[in-house]
């Protein structure tokens, strides 16, 4: 399953709930969720711990819009809009955790 997150980890429990609920698979961080994949963010440890069970992706245009293109945590994979489409088509199901 592809899990799509769009909320900042420091203003919403969405990422936390996803990590605690989903059985595994892919996670794509978009919009304000990209902050979770930046070095020094308080959610960094939570995200690193999740890397054992999930493959983590981040939408590059959203990261660059926020001025954080150079702060991506290693082990997180950058994708563009084409990569976003590939993730949705390569997974049997998608869930947007709104």
């Amino acid at each position, binding site marked *: 399953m592809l899990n799509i997150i769009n909320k900042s980890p420091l203003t919403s429990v969405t990422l936390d709930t996803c990590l605690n609920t989903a059985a595994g698979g892919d996670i794509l961080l978009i919009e*304000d969720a990209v902050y979770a994949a930046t070095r020094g963010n308080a959610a960094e440890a939570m995200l690193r711990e999740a890397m054992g069970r999930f493959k983590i992706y981040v939408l590059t245009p959203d990261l660059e*819009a926020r001025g954080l293109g150079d702060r991506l945590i290693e082990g997180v994979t950058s994708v563009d809009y084409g990569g976003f489409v590939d993730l949705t088509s390569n997974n049997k199901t998608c869930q947007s955790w709104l």
Partner: protein
Amino acid sequence: MSDAKKFMFVNRKAPYGTIYALESLEVVLITAAFDQDVSLAFLDDGVYQLKKGQQTKGIEIKNFSPAYRALEDYDVEKLYVEKEAMDARGLTEEDFLVPVTVLNRAEMGKLMEEQDVVLSF
């Protein structure tokens, strides 16, 4: 300017994900045009509004961050950043587009008490 009021704009949302940051900026500029005493406070994810290097071409949304640098032309020079929020996001003063005063939460709360009007975004 004896009848100027002390206005504080409290910014707690990240830019682009919601419209709050841009709406706040627009009201700040209107208020400044009326010669009021304007302060801006950045708390929680609001500190991300001031991050240098925003490149919004890829998301096709206007990059409004250069407007923070224009604030001093409107005599808006009191910008305060919450230290705890900055630290929790791995940011330092060097990451910001403009000079700011860093305050801890207690100092920020005290500053809010001194205002005549507080508008929260």
